[in-house]
């Protein structure tokens, strides 16, 4: 076994890969060869480091030096200066890693030091394509422990003690779910991993699969042992090619080592895992639709009960858990349920991974103990809204969740707390909005998504979301009435109460929560016909002020010929009149503003 004096870790997650981290890796290897130090320095492609905003990211150990936004042209300097001569290239460091000329290591910068990593603990640390590196960090030790020292009931008990709840959305207690699944006897049973991850802006599950695929395989095998299943399916969307290929490699390696297959570790237990690719419909993340899809049918939800634990894939008892739920399990088995339950708050134990997005400085992936406040996540770790803009709201739970306002920032994050406030944990999307976001437009955006993704099986969801969206369209274009607002509310509650699956039941949440917290914005759209943030273009009006000199530049470019010299007379001498825009014909293209001479700037948009 070769020991290297230095390790260069380069992020091979989807984010950094799309900004050429693979080429950076190749360049680094060839530079190291050129300098003759390729036998001393190891280059490792890892999973996501989480701070995607700053990608491509490179970490150099043993120092833990944190280079960000690395370009191919920077590689030569890092190799020559840092790796050959031991001088850290300060101007390429992540800006927070350099404070008063003192270089901080990756563990010391705020973004990481305030996190706690269980599910993501291997992401950005190991090479996901090398099973030995996973094993080095206690990989498959939990499986050994479960198979050789515990019986299935003990495994389930440990999970119950841990207090782990499902990370896929509903937050069902995992130990209880395993117990149900174990209680149904049948000749065939299944374990299924839900890696559909359909929330727009969410990429927790993808990063886990890309960064530590063996964690999921190990946990699924333990689940098979605990529930009496011998076959596992991972349902992953085809749009995640890197995750799929790492899973394939991981399954192959695990089979080679005998950690999957027949008679695992000579204990007589058989377990095998197969990948099923999904086409990426949001509804296929719903567990019963997912089952239909795995069976080769069109992905549409079934009625529950019976729950999958009783009748799942091929009508057989099936345990379905989310990727992140599984990723927590090896640590729970190894360190004990008690350890896990010591983290978090009473109803929510352990940690949760969030994908930070929207108007936030540090876009990326964070894992925090439950009970951390929204403020800590958004400000201390996320760095707040960029450009000193004012924070307005945060949407948790994706399209099924609701928005929370600055009033709620000090709420400790947990399943029950978020539901109490009219939102939910969901799978962990966290989209931040600042003063420039129009909340009616945001609600319309999410409705647009759920309306598109409704599978069409039940009427409340299929027709209801469409009508909701039409109402929002009317409001955003200035055609809404006060009556529309009450209709919006009525319909929202109707859909919530009457849809077949959770897609429909939760689709109105963004509307209900924005109506609750930002009713004044709706009223401004409906009564004043104004969008306070200027996002809804149709509500904008263009005016020509008395700075107008009557040159007519605007009228000449107007594609609708709706600007005419019909205002008051500006100059007695020439008889020129101020130009006026006919707002009933104006299409808000903005050409007139461009045409008005900058010195004059007579046209305003309100």
């Amino acid at each position: 076994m070769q020991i290297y004096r230095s390790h260069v870790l380069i992020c091979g997650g989807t984010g950094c890969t799309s900004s050429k981290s693979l080429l950076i890796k190749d360049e680094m290897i060839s530079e190291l060869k050129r300098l003759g130090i390729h036998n001393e320095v190891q280059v490792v492609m890892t999973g996501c480091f989480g701070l995607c905003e700053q990608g491509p990211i490179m970490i150099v150990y043993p120092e833990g030096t944190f280079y960000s936004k690395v370009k191919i042209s920077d590689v030569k300097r890092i190799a020559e200066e840092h790796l050959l001569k031991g001088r850290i290239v300060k101007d390429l460091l992540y800006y927070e890693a350099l404070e008063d000329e003192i270089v901080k290591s990756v563990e010391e910068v705020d973004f990481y030091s305030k996190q706690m990593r269980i599910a993501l603990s291997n992401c950005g640390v190991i090479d996901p394509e090398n099973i030995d590196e996973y094993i080095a960090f206690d990989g498959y030790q939990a499986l050994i422990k479960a198979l050789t020292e515990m019986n299935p009931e003990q495994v389930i008990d440990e999970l119950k003690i841990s207090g782990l709840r499902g990370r896929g959305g509903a937050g069902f207690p995992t130990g209880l779910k395993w117990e149900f699944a174990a209680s149904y006897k049948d000749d065939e049973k299944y374990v299924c991993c839900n890696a559909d991850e359909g929330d727009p802006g969410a990429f927790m599950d993808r990063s886990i699969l890309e960064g530590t695929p063996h964690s999921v395989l190990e946990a699924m095998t333990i689940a098979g042992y605990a529930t009496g299943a011998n076959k596992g399916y991972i349902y992953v969307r085809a749009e995640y090619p890197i995750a799929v290929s790492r899973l394939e490699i991981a399954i192959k390696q695990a089979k080679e080592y005998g950690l999957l297959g027949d008679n695992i570790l000579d204990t007589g237990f058989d377990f095998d895992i197969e990948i099923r690719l999904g086409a990426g419909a949001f509804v296929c993340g719903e567990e019963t639709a997912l089952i239909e899809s795995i069976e080769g049918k069109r992905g549409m939800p079934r009625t529950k009960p019976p729950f999958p634990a009783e009748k799942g894939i091929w009508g057989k008892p099936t345990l379905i858990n989310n990727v992140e739920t599984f990723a927590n399990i090896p640590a729970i088995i190894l360190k004990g349920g008690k350890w896990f339950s010591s983290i978090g708050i009473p109803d929510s134990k352990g940690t949760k991974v969030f994908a930070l997005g929207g108007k936030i400085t540090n876009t990326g992936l964070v894992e925090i103990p439950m009970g951390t406040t929204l403020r800590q996540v958004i400000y201390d770790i996320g760095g707040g809204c960029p450009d000193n803009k004012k924070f307005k709201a945060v949407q948790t739970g994706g399209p099924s969740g609701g928005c929370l306002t600055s009033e709620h920032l000090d709420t400790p994050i947990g399943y029950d707390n978020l539901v109490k406030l009219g939102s939910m944990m969901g799978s962990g999307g966290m989209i931040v909005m600042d003063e420039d976001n129009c909340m009616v437009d945001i609600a319309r955006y999410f409705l647009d998504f759920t309306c598109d993704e409704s599978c069409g099986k039940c009427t409340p969801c299929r027709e209801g979301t469409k009508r909701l969206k039409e109402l929002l369209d009317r409001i955003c274009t200035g055609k809404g009435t006060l009556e529309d607002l009450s209709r919006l509310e009525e319909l929202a509650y109707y859909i919530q109460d009457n849809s077949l699956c959770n897609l429909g039941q939760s689709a109105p949440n963004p509307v209900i929560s924005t109506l609750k917290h930002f009713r004044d914005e709706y009223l401004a759209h409906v009564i004043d016909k104004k969008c306070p943030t200027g996002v809804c273009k149709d509500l904008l009006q263009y005016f020509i002020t008395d700075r107008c000199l009557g040159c007519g530049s605007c009228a000449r470019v107007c594609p609708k010929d709706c600007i005419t010299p019909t205002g008051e007379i500006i100059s007695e001498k020439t008889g020129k009149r101020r130009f006026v825009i006919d707002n009933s014909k104006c299409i808000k293209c903005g050409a007139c503003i461009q045409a008005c001479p900058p010195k004059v700037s007579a046209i305003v948009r309100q």
Partner: protein
Amino acid sequence: MKKSIADLMKIRDEALKNMQLRDQSESNCRVVVGMGTCGISAGARPVLRAIIDEINKRSLNNVQVVQTGCVGMCRFEPMFDVNINDEKVTYVNMTSEKARQVVVEHIVNKRVIRDYTIGKSENE
């Protein structure tokens, strides 16, 4: 090939030797090699390579080898420090051969080779 539990433990221990480098809390021994222009021209690279090779051969898994720039005593190059539990010893005028001896005597056997240290050389 199918692995037994014992095999897996072996794999873990082997792989961990290399990977401990990424865990900053683990190491208590650090070798800091001068890699300024002065160091490199005096032959610091072969010295560094010898240190790594020796560490490798002996599977010393919690030793960090890092480089540093010129420390201002160029006439002593190639030189390096060995820090064990925050105690620093500076070795000077190193060759590959001497460096290997330092790894064995100082890092493995915990015996400082006085003859090679800076205190000795300065007094000469």
